[in-house]
Every structure is written in C-alpha cells, then in structure tokens.
C-alpha cells in the first residue's frame, strides 16, 4: 500500500512539474520573443501591462481564455477538439526521461534516447490531425507540410542521437549526463551538435523552417481555424513547450545537462534552455523562410549524408581505439564542422548561379544603361559578358 501511495505521490509531483515547465515556458518565451523581436526590429514591443510589460503574457492568457472557442461548422468536430490534446502529449511525455538534477529524474529509462525519438512522433500526429480536421485548405497544406518536414528531419536527429549514445555507451539519459563529467559532448562532437540544432529547429517548425505555419503563405497553417484557448494551446503551450523540451534534450545530450561550473543543478538547465530559446528568437527575427523543396533537399541531400559520415567515423574510432577515442573524434568532428560552415555558403551560391538562367540583355534604346557600382556585385560576375554590340 505504501508503495502505491508513494507511486501516486511521485506521479503527481512529476505531473505538476511537467505542467509547470510547459506553462512557464508558454508564458515566458512568447513574451521574451516579442520583447527581443521588438528590440531587433528597433521597436519597443509590449511594454504597457506591468513594469516593462511583464504581465503582458498573463493578460494575453486571460484574453485567450475568455475568447469564444469557435469550431468551424464543417470541421470534423471531435478530431478538431482532440488535435491540441494529441500534440500536447509530446512536451509532457518527453520530460519523463530528462534528468533535471543529480537526484531528480522522473523515470530513468534504460531506453531513454529511443523514447525521446518515439514520443516526438505525437507532435506530428497532432498537427496532421488538426490540419485535416479543420477542413480548411490552408490547414491541410500546413498539416501535410508538417508531416513531410518532421519525418524527414527525424532521420538526421536520430543519427546524431546515435552518435551521443555511442559516446556515452548507453541509451539512458542519466548515463549520458554522467558520461559528460569530464568534457561536454559539444566539444567532442560539434558537428552532431550543429545537425541537432538544425534538425531540431526544423522539427519545432521555427524560422527558417516554419513552413507548416508560414504566415505569409498559409495564413497560419494547421492552426488557421483554431481560436481562443485551443489556439493558445497550439501557439503558446505546445510550440514553446516543445522548444523547451528540445532545449532540455539538447542541453542534456551536448551541454552536460544539469552540470555546470559553480552551481550544479536545475539552475544551469534553466540558463541553457534560455540560451536555446534566445537562439530560436534570434533566428526568427533574422532569417527568411525556406521553400518546401529546398527544405527537403537540405535534409536528404546534405544533412543525412553528413550525419551518416559523422556517425560512421565516430563508430570507427570507437572500435579502433577503445581506450582513447575522444581526441580523434573531436578533431574529425571539428574539421568537418568548420568545413561545412565555411563551404556551405559557397556551394549554395554556386549552385544557385548555375540555376539562374542566362538572359540575353537585348539592347533597347539609346539611353543610358548605367549599372551602378553595387549592381556589379559578385552575382553578376559569373556571366558578365554583355551583348551590347
């Protein structure tokens, strides 16, 4: 009996903490986003409710709570209502395996890493079902985009997670953190970290991969028809909850989890999560959005081969030098990452220039064709032969 009570108490504590993590991130990060975004766009952002606008998220929450919850007449009612709940399971369940501190992990599964990936699937399901059930074409296209994108980016994500598993020698996240006592895996495997970030941003549907909810094309993608609290679920809690659990995962896998100088424990996790959230916000206000085919090309032709090579070489070194494999892996990974970062823009630009049609400059008229200096930029150098006979 005592065991069962203990189990229930533990369950309730875990539930409360998991809900708190999601709700706090759903309140804090959108607000931070709007302030920082305002700062980067040379504006103020919300600053009216409370000092520096810090009560703005609460005001928004109240507004969304009291707003009418509209279910479109021709939607598939039950699935429409169910979709946010399905999507909500991902950020809730992922937290089960995250070690928050030395002593607090809800459940240290011995298949923790596999569990992470498996649970990630529910998020797609929620978006897909929500998009389909809305009976709106924008939503449907958004849902389909979400599915295609997330299935594609799951693969590089999985491949980098395997690298971490190889380095840690275990699938349990507690052991992953324990294995990083000496050196964080970001230093050993920066390439994997980079791929994890890119694929993670794609999995989270954030800029520059925010195609499923692209405002300028699909209005709001799969959540176009949602309003009131269900919209708040999708937009605030699920999206930012996912960001938080992704950041928690990334810090656990690559940044030593709760470890850190001076104070070890959840405080460091909070700092690391904030760094990732800032990264997301920074991307959001800087990058344009990719296109669907480019997104797929990037995943299948660049990220997957790269992470496969990385995985193979890592495994090779681990087998070859079982005692002292960290150094060769680190050197290889740093080299390939720096090469990737440096070469990628050059290659992309070259490919783009090839794609660009060579257009005849028909000579129209006697007046000035005066190219200004900056128009004569490098993009014109490729085929600068002018036919002004």
């Amino acid at each position, binding site marked *: 009996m005592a065991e069962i009570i203990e189990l229930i108490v533990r369950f309730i504590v875990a539930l409360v903490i998991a809900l708190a993590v999601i709700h706090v991130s759903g309140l804090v990060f959108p607000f931070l986003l709007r302030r920082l975004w305002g700062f980067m766009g040379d504006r103020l952002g919300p600053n009216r409710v409370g000092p520096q606008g810090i009560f703005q998220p609460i005001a928004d929450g109240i507004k969304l709570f009291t707003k009418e919850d509209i279910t479109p007449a021709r939607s598939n009612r039950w699935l429409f209502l169910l979709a946010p709940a399905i999507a909500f399971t991902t950020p809730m369940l992922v937290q089960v395996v995250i070690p928050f501190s030395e002593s607090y992990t809800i459940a240290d599964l011995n298949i923790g890493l596999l569990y992470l990936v498996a649970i990630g699937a529910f998020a797609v399901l929620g978006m897909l079902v929500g998009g389909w059930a809305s*009976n709106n074409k924008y939503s449907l296209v958004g849902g389909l985009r979400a599915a295609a994108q997330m299935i594609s980016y799951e693969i590089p994500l999985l491949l980098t997670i395997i690298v971490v598993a190889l380095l840690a020698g275990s699938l349990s996240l507690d052991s992953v953190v324990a294995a990083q006592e000496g050196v964080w895996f970001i230093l050993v495997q920066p390439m994997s970290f980079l791929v994890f970030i890119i694929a993670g941003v794609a999995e989270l549907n954030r800029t520059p991969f925010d195609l499923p909810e692209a405002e300028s094309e699909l209005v709001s993608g799969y959540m176009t028809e949602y309003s009131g609290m269900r919209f708040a679920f999708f937009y605030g809690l699920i999206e930012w909850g996912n960001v938080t659990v992704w950041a928690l995962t990334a810090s656990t896998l690559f940044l030593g989890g709760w470890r850190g100088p001076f104070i070890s424990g959840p405080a460091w996790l909070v700092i690391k999560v904030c760094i990732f959230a800032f990264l997301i916000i920074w991307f959001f206000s800087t990058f344009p959005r990719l296109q669907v085919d480019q997104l797929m090309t990037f995943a299948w032709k660049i990220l997957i081969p790269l992470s496969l090579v990385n995985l193979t070489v890592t495994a090779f070194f681990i087998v070859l030098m079982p005692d002292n494999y960290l150094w060769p892996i680190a050197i290889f990974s740093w080299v390939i990452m720096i090469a990737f970062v440096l070469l990628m823009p050059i290659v992309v630009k070259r490919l783009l220039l090839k794609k660009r049609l060579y257009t005849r400059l*028909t000579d*129209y*008229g*006697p007046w000035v064709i005066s190219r200004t200096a900056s128009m004569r930029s490098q993009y014109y150098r490729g085929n600068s032969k002018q036919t002004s006979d």
Partner: protein
Amino acid sequence: MAVAREELTAEAALERVEELAGEHIESIAIEEGGRLLIRLAGKELPIVCRAIRDDAELSFKYLVYVTATDFEDRIEAVYFLRSINHQLTADLRVDLDRERPTLPSVSSIWRTACWHERETYDFFGIIYTGHPELNRILTGVKGGVHPLRKDEQPHRVRRQEWKWDKASPPLRLPGEPDRKTRS
C-alpha cells in the same frame, strides 16, 4: 536582333508606316510631341499592328494601354504604343458603331492587350473577337451595363443589383465531388 541605333524621327516613322501598311490605314498624321496618329478601320487592325510591331525599324513592341472614348455618336477605340528603341509613340484609333461595337482582338500580338481589352469590354462593351477570355474584370456588374458609356450615369449604376461574377470559368474539376457533400 538587329536594332537600328540611329534616332528615328517621327517623319521617317510616318513614311515607314505608310510604306508598310499604307493601304490598310485611313489616315496618318503627326500630333504634338511627335506622336503618330493613325486612324484605321477595325478589320485592318491586326494586320497593321503586326506590321508595325514586327518591323525592325519601328518595333512598336510596347503596348501602353488599350481604351476607348464614348463620343455619344460613336465609340473611338484607342491603342497607345511605344517604341522602346526610339522615342516614338503611336496612337491607333478606330471608330466603332455605338450599338454593336466589335473589334478583332490584338491579344495574340501583344500579350499585355489581354487584360486591357477585358477592361475596355467591361467599361464600354466592345466585343473583341478572338479574345481568349472576354469577361468582366473590374466591375462585375451583371446585365448589359457598361459604366463608362455616357448614357450610364452613376446613380443608375448604383441602383443596379451588384452581383459578383463567380471567379471566371468554373474551376470545379472533372471527378471532383460536389462541395456540398463532405467526404
């Protein structure tokens, strides 16, 4: 493409037009600012247009607008052309019967003419034969109301029942189920 680089004067252009299509036009004159004013009959329009567009020297490749003016006794259709190689403009005028204004379409000669002609049809009711999709574009009024005709006063247009045309041709595909039944 061989392009004549020397400046073509309006007088030379006039001669060239007469040489190319002299028998198809009724009159040609030079207006203020070196603008060629060419009057012709409706059925000759495509021949003349093609001739002055394809001629390497004139190359009136740029159709600025197509419109019409209702002079109460007749409708005058206007085609305004520019030659980008030279500072030359040309104005093609066709007088039309007010009851049944009909003109051959030039949308196969200049692609931009397509919508200009739709607009003119919408405003004046000129029927362009051979036009690929001649339907209302801006007003979307039903019935024979063509608002820019002089006998259509604004209040009369306003009193009409305004109904938006459906987005031209019916876009339901063969095999697409009826939208009323949800699948």
